[in-house]
């Protein structure tokens, strides 16, 4: 029970963080039809910017400054990069974002070096919020959840209740028509791209100190975010939300299980002889398979339901 509750809370906070990343990616994908390979690099920039501005102004101003900075870089990327590349087609756009991911990584190497930086959880949030049975639950994780839920609610309100949100929604499916009605769709694209990057940046601010802030963080998180978007369905926010929580839980729960497949099968009444040729393969524990499970889920999803849980696009 204790394991279950704590792991559930951790799954939730991790899943919400994944959604902060995947929501921006999926919005950008729906609108422009291009998968932004550099999306996780903006997440990394968020973490480094928070570390840097945090040293000067402290954590709280950094929480706002870093995502804004990342958003501005996102806007510039769209306006002077992607928009120019757009007329050469989706492959060119894809390659552009792919290259950008490497450029950002090298820039991070140059400025902050190859070793992890000392970006820490702020003192004001570094305490135990409550103790559940024997496990202490850190306040920072609760704070992360709070910010994520706040962001989720604001994103929902902006998209459904404001005029710009309606323009964004309409542009997701009919950009030409929206533009023919006199709305500046290229500018809306830029705003969505910037907004998506700012969300990724915010995720970086929150995740960077909980996990680790180092130049490899973009690639390790990036692949998981792609799994989320594929499983959830390309271009579906609801799908991305469900998939984020699903992948978050799968990863968090499986890490906690120290049972091997042999134990599992014994539980089901199947005893595997230690001389069996299957023994070595089945003796690995579930926690050992944790890193591969999301990818396995993605492959299964692509075989069974290629458009994902809630996806509308075939590509």
């Amino acid at each position: 029970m204790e394991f279950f509750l704590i792991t559930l809370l951790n799954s939730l906070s991790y899943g919400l963080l994944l959604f902060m990343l995947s929501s921006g990616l999926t919005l950008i994908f729906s609108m422009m039809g291009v998968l932004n390979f550099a999306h996780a690099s903006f997440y990394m920039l968020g973490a480094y910017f928070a570390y840097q501005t945090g040293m000067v102004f402290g954590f709280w101003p950094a929480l706002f400054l870093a995502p804004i900075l990342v958003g501005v870089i996102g806007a510039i990327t769209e306006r002077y990069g992607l928009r120019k590349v757009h007329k050469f087609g989706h492959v060119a756009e894809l390659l552009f974002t792919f290259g950008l991911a490497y450029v950002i990584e090298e820039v991070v190497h140059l400025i902050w070096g190859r070793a992890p930086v000392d970006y820490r959880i702020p003192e004001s949030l570094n305490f135990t919020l409550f103790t559940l049975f024997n496990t202490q639950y850190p306040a920072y994780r609760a704070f992360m959840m709070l910010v994520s839920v706040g962001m989720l609610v604001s994103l929902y309100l902006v998209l459904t209740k404001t005029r710009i949100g309606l323009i964004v929604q309409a542009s997701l499916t009919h950009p030409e028509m929206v533009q023919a009605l006199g709305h500046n769709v290229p500018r809306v694209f830029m705003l969505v791209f910037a907004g998506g990057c700012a969300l990724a940046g915010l995720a970086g601010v929150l995740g960077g100190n909980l996990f680790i802030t180092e130049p490899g963080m973009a690639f390790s998180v990036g692949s998981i975010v792609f799994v989320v978007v594929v499983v959830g369905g390309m271009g579906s926010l609801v799908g991305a939300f469900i998939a984020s929580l699903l992948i978050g839980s799968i990863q968090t729960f499986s890490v906690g299980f120290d049972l091997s497949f042999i134990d599992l099968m014994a539980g089901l009444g199947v005893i595997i002889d230690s001389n069996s040729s299957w023994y070595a393969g089945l003796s690995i524990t579930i926690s050992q398979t944790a890193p591969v499970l999301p990818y396995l889920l993605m492959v299964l999803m692509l075989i069974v339901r290629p458009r994902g849980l809630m996806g509308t696009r075939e590509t």
Partner: protein
Amino acid sequence: MTEIMLRVSDLNAYYGKSHVLQGVDLHIRSGEIVSLLGRNGVGRSTTVKAIMGQVEHTGEINFQNQSLSGLQSHEIARKGLGYVPENRDIFPTLTVRQNLLLGLKSDQKESRWSEEDMYDLFPRLKERLHAPAGVLSGGEQQMLTLCRTLMGNPELVMIDEPTEGLAPKIVEQMATLFEEISKRGVSILLVEQKLTIALRISQRLYVMGHGQIVFEGSPSELQADESIRKEWLEV
């Protein structure tokens, strides 16, 4: 004669290597209803899309004494050109009212059309105000698309195949509405395949064939010219 509102001269456009518009010339005067007729694939829709800035083209397009060359589609819309595309393009997940309100431009000050006007013209829309637009029937969607464009207060509205696939009764309603729009001083460029309503409500008609204008004249002139109708219109 009233002044010329839209003048298109020597309009050329290509889809890949195929030369789809081969020097189209046409004009529309203030308050006029003009029809652009022709069979499928002769370039009528492409002409309208080129005017709207959605298709790359060469040639000169002048609207209210301003050149539209090099402008983006939203800038052209803001000059006072409205476009109702053939495939209707409603925003299916948004409600009927949200669709209508997106017809308003961001800093629009005045309009000869109010939201209430739209409901007077099409009471069906008022009944379905909060329904997602995607569940409307084809005819209702067509009305919604037209009303949405009118909300933006265009001086000239280009309507592509509005009656396609609609029941005769709704086609009649459409014709009445076009005359009402025209009464309020809005010019109409109507792209049609069928002669029925075009002959009745237009002041002038153009017939297109193979990317060129092959006939220009009044409804009675077109009715008199059997060879044009045989060669370019009848199936």
